[in-house]
């Protein structure tokens, strides 16, 4: 049998580099050249270029665009797209109004990487599926139609929700999980003008088109993130379960934001937002579990019921069977930590 011609050795292909002066310039570059890509911190894109996974022929540097502010206006915290994860995580307004976001960002990567990684780049970081990264393996996300290497392969890190036969990869971001729990939206500008995309609609499920990670138009530029005020700041937790204490992607992560209330019945949950990472092609909001918990007493019993509900419809692929247990355990643990309820 003749084997498909595959390559092991990978290299960065020649590309041009240009620095965008403003958003319009960047949009123009993207519009006239379908093989152009924006580059921010470069920690994901350059990596993928070195592995031969992506080969843009023109890089448009957006680091000097003026999307580097963090502001609080009329009940909304806005963070510019080129603000680095380090700066945002340490920002006083972020810590005060949206501590969950800071916690999630600090759980990601390493300090060195966070110093380069931007808010926009983090939103768009691609999956870490090993079959996506190894260009000698089949991957529908990298090369549509070649098949999914992970489906019957080593899929320990892979999805348990919302996957398809075409792709079982997960979104690897920690930041995105917090953003989903916080009902953030993504500000973008493009050839057709500006729009805000609710974060829940920003990332996609793979379906038949795993090559598409999100709903952003190829010519659009992310300008910032908007996070509405909430009453969660006292009871938030980002729990990340991983194979080593730092610098590892999540096996499972859980973002919890609670608003607690003392009633005659005891400590009850007035409002709750829950999201999970490491389980799907997009950050996974646990709506049913939220509904169950809302107005209930904060007890471990209720947390367990919510976790069980959250797991409905989960499906594993062999190496990731453990997630069916680790995920609900982690939900319970994160709720315990956020609420301070021990029993």
């Amino acid at each position, binding site marked *: *049998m*003749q*084997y498909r*011609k*595959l*390559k*092991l*050795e*990978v*290299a*960065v*292909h*020649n590309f041009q580099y240009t620095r965008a002066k403003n958003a319009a310039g960047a949009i123009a570059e993207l519009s006239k050249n379908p093989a152009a890509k924006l580059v921010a911190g470069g920690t994901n894109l350059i990596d993928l270029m070195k592995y*031969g996974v992506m080969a843009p022929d023109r890089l448009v540097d957006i680091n000097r665009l003026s999307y580097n502010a963090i502001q609080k206006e009329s009940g909304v915290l806005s963070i510019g797209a080129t603000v680095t994860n380090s700066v945002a995580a340490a920002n006083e307004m972020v810590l005060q109004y949206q501590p969950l976001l800071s916690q999630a960002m600090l759980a990601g990567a390493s300090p060195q990487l966070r110093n380069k990684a931007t808010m926009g780049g983090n939103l768009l970081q691609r999956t*870490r599926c*090993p079959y996506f*990264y*190894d260009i*000698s*393996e089949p991957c529908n996300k990298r090369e549509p139609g070649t098949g999914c*290497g992970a489906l*019957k*392969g*080593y899929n*320990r890190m892979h999805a348990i929700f919302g996957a398809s036969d075409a792709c079982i990869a997960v979104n690897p971001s920690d930041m995105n999980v917090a953003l989903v729990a916080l009902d953030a939206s993504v500000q973008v500008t493009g050839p057709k003008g500006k729009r805000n995309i609710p974060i829940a609609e920003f990332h996609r499920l793979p379906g038949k088109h795993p090559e598409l990670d999100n709903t952003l138009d190829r010519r659009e530029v992310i300008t910032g993130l908007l996070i509405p005020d909430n009453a969660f700041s006292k009871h938030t937790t980002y*729990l990340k*379960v*991983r*194979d*080593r*204490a*730092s*610098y*590892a992607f999540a*096996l*499972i992560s859980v973002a919890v934001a609670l608003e607690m209330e003392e009633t005659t019945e005891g400590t009850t949950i007035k409002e709750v937002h829950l999201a999970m990472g490491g389980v799907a092609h997009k950050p996974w909001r646990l709506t049913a579990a939220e509904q169950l918990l809302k107005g209930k007493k904060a007890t471990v019993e209720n947390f367990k019921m919510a976790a069980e509900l959250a797991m409905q419809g989960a499906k594993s692929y062999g190496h990731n069977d*453990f997630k069916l*247990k*680790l995920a609900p*355990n*982690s939900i*319970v*643990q994160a709720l*315990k930590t956020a609420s301070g309820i021990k029993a």
Partner: protein
Amino acid sequence: MGKKHLENADMAKAISRVDGRAKVTGAAKYAAEVQLQDLTYAVLVGSTIAQGIITKIDTQKAEWAPGVIAVISHLNTPGVPEYKLQNQDVIQKQLRVFDDANIYYNGQPVAVVIADTLERAQYGASLVSVTYKKEQHVSNLEDNLSRAVVPKKAKADPRGFTSDFVRGKAGAYLDAEVQVVEEYIQPSEVHHPMELHSIIASWEGNDKLTLVDKTQGSQQTQASIAKSFQLKPENVKVVATYVGGAFGSALRVWPHEIVAILAAKKVQKPVKLVLSRGQMSYMVGYRPYTLQKVSLGASKDGKLVGISHESYGKTSMYEEFTENVLQMTRMMYDVPNIDTKYRIVPLNVSTPAPMRGPGEATGSFALECAMDELSYKLNMDPIALRLVNYAGQDPDKLLPWSSNYLKDCYRLGAEKIGWNNRKAEAGTVQEGEWKVGYGVATGTFGAFRSAATIKATYKADGTLLLQSAIADIGPGTGTAMTSIAAENLGIDPSLITFQLGNSSFPKAPMQGGSNSVATVGSAVVAACTNLKVELAKRAAKQKQEWNNAVPANIQLKGNELVNSDDTASKVKLVSLFTEGGLTELVIEGSAAQGDERNKYSFYSYSVHFIEAHVHELTGVVRIKNAVSVVDCGTIVSPKTARSQLMGGIVGGIGMALMEEAVIDDRTGRTINASFGDYHVPVNADIPQMEMLFVNEKDPYLNPMGSKGLGEVVIIGVAPAVANAVYNATGKRIRHLPITPDKLI
């Protein structure tokens, strides 16, 4: 015992690494950093199938790419002369580089692209297109146990650790009152030293070759390359001044080194070849995936009746790799009945290599977990169980130990970690959401020495230059040798320079198997002794009392030669140079193994104590405290010894909790061939550690009283962690690494 042992707090006065400043400032140049004129760059192309034949290699695009000078494959290789001389089967041979179209493992080098810059070589390599006829391959050990074979070398050494062996009665554990019968799995681990494997090859004419190379043995690489390329050994020069870790991965010549030499021949220019981090998973060995079956039998009082131990390890299709997995089982405990069986399974993988604590680290994981399991069945303290079975002499060789302070190791470590806090019943201690447990395990590694020579150049200005071909892959050999010489001569360490890592320097063994201090240190002592004798001879011309001076009493104090027996006889050191108008004295000293191995059995020992916390819901393991105690004879260089032990504990924690090279058996490719995906511990994984040394002299191995340290520090750490996790949770994980998924 008084307080002779060394603890963390005793390190302050010890001398620091002699090359520490050069290393942290970047002044130390590693192979890949060396720049030569006209240097060209080579990038390897690896196969993407695991078994089959190359049917076509299309190199045209690569050859036309900018900057590309040549593309070499089996179709146009200049050839390795040795391959033509011997007509051996490919089995039992190292991989023959570019010799034919056969593929034996995924990632095997099939071509190399040489260009004027690294980036152009990389780009060129990405353009080489290889077509294969793919054949069925096998890479999974458990699925292929039927292919297991007795290694050929076992026949040549029937008493060796790879031969089937019986002492007393086979299967005697079956008669015992209490039994443990379990299987343990050590996955493949990649060495992944910080420094990538790198080489610069440059030819001078057709018969002279210089290599700047990452190697653990400059002279061994010299000999191996001289043989491959049929050159006079003296015409091959190997330089390895700095080596950034190796852990066993640079103990032999690998295909990429042969490729660089072939490439330099082809392009008639020096060639630099640096493996990528990904290629490190395919090209330079690994600790082999090994399945072990351990059966222990003991009487109710804990006395071992019998041990049966089998080991099945991966090897490649073209070469048999073996290691001493079963050595510890045969000598560690006083057991009347032992039987061992060692098998290897040839698969479509590259050849493994010794990795820190080779064999013994794998073997001790199984044996020391099984001992722990036995302790619970007996309801006996794991330390008490080991003490009941303590072997007063080597039960395998029936020789007395040269020295053995294991009992001190158990005692010192138990005190330090607070062993009393351990609850005998597993899974009973809880601190908040964390389950708490303690574990202990033992390690041992043979202590050796071989032959070495030191050239000493003593100058009239009081400085001393010592030279040896030995490599320093990180333990601080130069520092240890400087300490030995300074102590012996009585001079300040700052006056001594130790040069190493060059095949032109005097004879030394490879840096592997924990014998550098024992071997080269002995030669340093010999050279220092010879120097003192020579100085005394010269001094005797001024004051004849020096004729009777005993070297042990002679010291070079300040600017004078002093005889501790007779203070009156001091002579000025400078005055000893006047005769013959010399500015320096050049002296050699050699040392080699004597007949000590016929009389004594030599081993170093380590005992590791771990306090582990395991999260009740997420299965996350945090090591809270680690205490290790080592009996490796006299410590000649406390700071670097401590660093070695620290590194061993960290490596052992990695082995226990996260290291695993995962192969997709459908392709034979490594799934986690990057530093992002192949996990080694980060700082946040590493706890408070206490490094203790018994620091008692071994009287028989060498003049310093030292035994080996480099390997024994990691042996036994992983089972100590596994045992602590069991004590915390009641869950016995027999398949490393112990990741959260296995504990929930």
